[in-house]
C-alpha cells in the first residue's frame, strides 16, 4: 500500500505569488486520474469562491472514485445543518464524502452570524462538540431503519431511528437527522492534529521531516497525513518569490523535480499514512504532479475503503 494522496484545490495555489486557478471539475478530473484518494476544498464565509459544500456536491456527480472533502467551520454554522449537508454529500457521492474540520474564528467571519470570536479553549470545545454531535446524528438512523412492511403499514421501524439528545457547551440538538445514515456510516472526518483528536484523519503540519515524524508519533488518530507544499520545477521559484515572497514555511515545503518528489514520498511513506498536497501554483503544479505520481485511479468504491478505514459500528445499534 503506497502513501495516500490528498489535494487541496481551492484558490490559485499555496505560493502567495500564484495566480489563476483551475475550474473544480478540471482539477478533480486530473486528481482522480492521477490516483489521489481525495480532494479538499478550503473555505471561509468571506471566500471569493462558492461555498465548499456546494462545490463538493456538484463534483460528486462528475467523479467516480475520488473522495470529496469540503471545509466546514463548526463555530460558524448550525451543527444540525452541517451534519445534514455532509450526510447528503455522502449519499450523492455514494460514499465518498469527507469533512475537513475548519477552525475559522476571525472577527470578520463571526460578524456574518452576528457573533464574536471564541477563546482558543472555547473554540476547541465547540469543535469537539460539533464533531461529537455530527457523528451521533449520522448514526441516528440505523442502517436497517427503513423496513417498508406493507402488512403493518409501517415504512420505518421507529426503534431504529433515534433522538440523539446531545447537550454541548454552547448548543443542544435533539435529533434525529432528517437524512438516513450515510453510505459510509459516518463521513471521514479530517482535522488538523492540533485542533482535535476526534478525527479519522489527522493533518500534521511541520516544516521539517524530523518534526513531522515526532508530531506524527504523538498523534493518536487512525490515519495521519502530512501537509506538504509542492513546487515542481525549481526554476520557477525565483519568479514567484519576486512577485511575492513565500515566507517561512509552517508545513513541509518541497521544491524540486519529479524524481526528487517521488523520493520525498518514499521517505514520508515510513512516517505518515498520507500527504495532503498544496501545489504552489495549482494550474502548473497539478498537471506536473499527476505525471510525477505515476498512479491510476484509486479503487474505492468508498473513501473509507480507499483509506482502509472500517465502516463505523452504529452507536445506537441494538438500543431501544
Amino acid at each position, binding site marked *: 500500500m503506497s502513501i495516500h494522496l490528498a489535494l487541496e484545490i481551492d484558490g490559485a495555489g499555496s505560493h502567495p505569488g500564484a495566480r489563476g486557478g483551475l475550474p473544480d471539475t478540471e482539477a478533480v478530473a486530473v486528481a482522480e486520474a492521477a490516483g489521489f484518494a481525495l480532494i479538499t476544498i478550503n473555505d471561509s464565509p468571506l471566500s471569493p*469562491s462558492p461555498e465548499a459544500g456546494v462545490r463538493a456536491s456538484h463534483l460528486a456527480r462528475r467523479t467516480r472514485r475520488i473522495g470529496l472533502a469540503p471545509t466546514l467551520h463548526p463555530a460558524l454554522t448550525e451543527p444540525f445543518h452541517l451534519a445534514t449537508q455532509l450526510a447528503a454529500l455522502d449519499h450523492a457521492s455514494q460514499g465518498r464524502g469527507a469533512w475537513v474540520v475548519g477552525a475559522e474564528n476571525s472577527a470578520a467571519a463571526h460578524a456574518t452570524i452576528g457573533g464574536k470570536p471564541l477563546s482558543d479553549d472555547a473554540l476547541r470545545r465547540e469543535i469537539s462538540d460539533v464533531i461529537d454531535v455530527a457523528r451521533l446524528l449520522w448514526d441516528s438512523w440505523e442502517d436497517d431503519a427503513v423496513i417498508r412492511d406493507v402488512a403493518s403499514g409501517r415504512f420505518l421501524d421507529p426503534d431504529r431511528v433515534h433522538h440523539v439528545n446531545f447537550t454541548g457547551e454552547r448548543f443542544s440538538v435533539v435529533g434525529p437527522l432528517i437524512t438516513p445514515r450515510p453510505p459510509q456510516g459516518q463521513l471521514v472526518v479530517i482535522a488538523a492534529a492540533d485542533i482535535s483528536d476526534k478525527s479519522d484523519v489527522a493533518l500534521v503540519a511541520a516544516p521539517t521531516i524530523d518534526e513531522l515524524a515526532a508530531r506524527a508519533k504523538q498523534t493518536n488518530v487512525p490515519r495521519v497525513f502530512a501537509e506538504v507544499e509542492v513546487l515542481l520545477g525549481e526554476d520557477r521559484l525565483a519568479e514567484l518569490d519576486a512577485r511575492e515572497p513565500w515566507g517561512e514555511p509552517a508545513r513541509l515545503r518541497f521544491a524540486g523535480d519529479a524524481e526528487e518528489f517521488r523520493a520525498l514520498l518514499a521517505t514520508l511513506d515510513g512516517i505518515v499514512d498520507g500527504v495532503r498536497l498544496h501545489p504552489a501554483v495549482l494550474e502548473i503544479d497539478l498537471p506536473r504532479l499527476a505525471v510525477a505520481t505515476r498512479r491510476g485511479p484509486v479503487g474505492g468504491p468508498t473513501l473509507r475503503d480507499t483509506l482502509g478505514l472500517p465502516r463505523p459500528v452504529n452507536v445506537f445499534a441494538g438500543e431501544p
Partner: protein
Amino acid sequence: MTTHRLHLGLFFTGVGPQLLWSQPDFAEHTHIDTFVQTVRTLERGLFDAFFLGEGLRVRENRGRVHDLDVAGRPDAITQLSALAAETERIGLVATQNTTYNFPFDLARRLASLDHVSGGRAGWNIVTTDNAWTGENFRYGGWLPHERRYERAAAFVEMARNLWGGNRVDTHGDLVDVAGSLGVAGNPVLFQAGDSPGGRDLAARFADAVFSANTDYDKAQAYAADLTTRLEAYGRTRDSLKILPGAQVVLGDTAKEAAEKADWIQREQTTGPRAIAFLEQYWNKDLSGYDPDGPLPDIEPAEGELDPSRGTISVEHRTGKLERIAEWRRLDLSIRELVLHVTPRHNTFVGTPGQVADEWARYVRTRAVDGFNLVPQLLPGSVEDIVDKLVPELQERGVYRTEYEGRTLREHMDLA
C-alpha cells in the same frame, strides 16, 4: 394577444402520506439514483423546475418517530448542487426557512448553487415558529409567531443585498449581519405561505408563489388579491408567477382515472394512518381501535394538540375538543372520518386530454401561471405527466416545445 404558457414544477416532498411507498415498483425515494432519474425525466418534459421540500425535524407521533409515511430527505441545497451536474436546463429550487438559518450563510449557499448550476437556482422561502423543530438548533424556539414574517422580510432583503454585491452591516434584534459575499447570484424567489403575512411577503419580494388555491374560482380570487397587493409595492401581475401545488391522476378513460384517484386516496389513508391522525387529537394510544369501527369512546387527553407531526397549522392548534365533538356527530368510521376531514384537494383527475383542456383554461385566463405537481407514485406519476400530459398541453399551444433559455429566470419569463 399573448398566449400564456404553463410553467410546471415538480415538488418532491420526501415526507408525508402522498407518496405510496407500498407499491412494488416504488423507487427508493432517498437514493441519489431516484433523484437523478426524476430530474432527467422532468428535463425531458421541459419542466421549469424541480423543488425539494424542507422539514428540519423528523415527524413524530406521541414522542416516537412517525413510522407510517415515507421519511428521510437530503439537505436541499447539497442535493440540488449534485443534480446540477446531471442536468443542463431545469431549475433547481430549495425550500429553506428563514427561522433556523443564518442569513449570510444561506444567502451564500444559494448563490453558490446558482453559480454551479449556471443560473438555475431558486429559493422557496418558508417561515416557521415551531419550537419543537427549534430543538435541533442553537437558539431553539426563539422567534415569536407574530414576528416570523418580519424576520423573513429582513432576511430576504439582506440576501438580495448580498447577492447584489453590497456590503451589509445590520445589527437588529431579528437580523445581525456584517459582511459581503464573494459570490454573486440571483436565485428565483418562491413564496409558499398562504396567510396574509405570507401573501404580503410574496407581493413584496417573490418572483413566484407556490399557492394552495387550485379550484378555479379560488385561484381567480387569489390572483386578484395578489394583483392588488402587488400594486401596493409598485409591481404588476406579470412580475409574479402563480403556481399552485397540485396532484394529477391520469387514466385512459375518465372512469379509469376516477377509480385510480379513489384507490390512491384510500392507499394514502390506511387504517394505521387514520388511527395516527386521531392520536394527534386524543394524545392517547388508540392502537386498539378498529379503523373501520366507530370513533374512540374514550375522552381525549387534556391540553392542546401535540405539534410533533410538524404538520398542524396554527389555526388548528386550539379548539380540539370542539372539533372532536363535531366529528362524533358525523357518525362515521375512523377511516371514513379521516377521509372526510382530509378530502382530496388540489387534484386534477381525468384523461390527459381532459386535464390539458382544464389547465389551458386556467392559464389562458391567468387564474394561474402553472402548477407545482406533487407525485403519488415514483416513478409512475412523473413518467405519466411527462409522457402523456405534456404532449397534450403542447398540442393546445400552452406549453413549450423546447427550452428557449438557459436560466430558471428565463424559463419563467422573469426579468
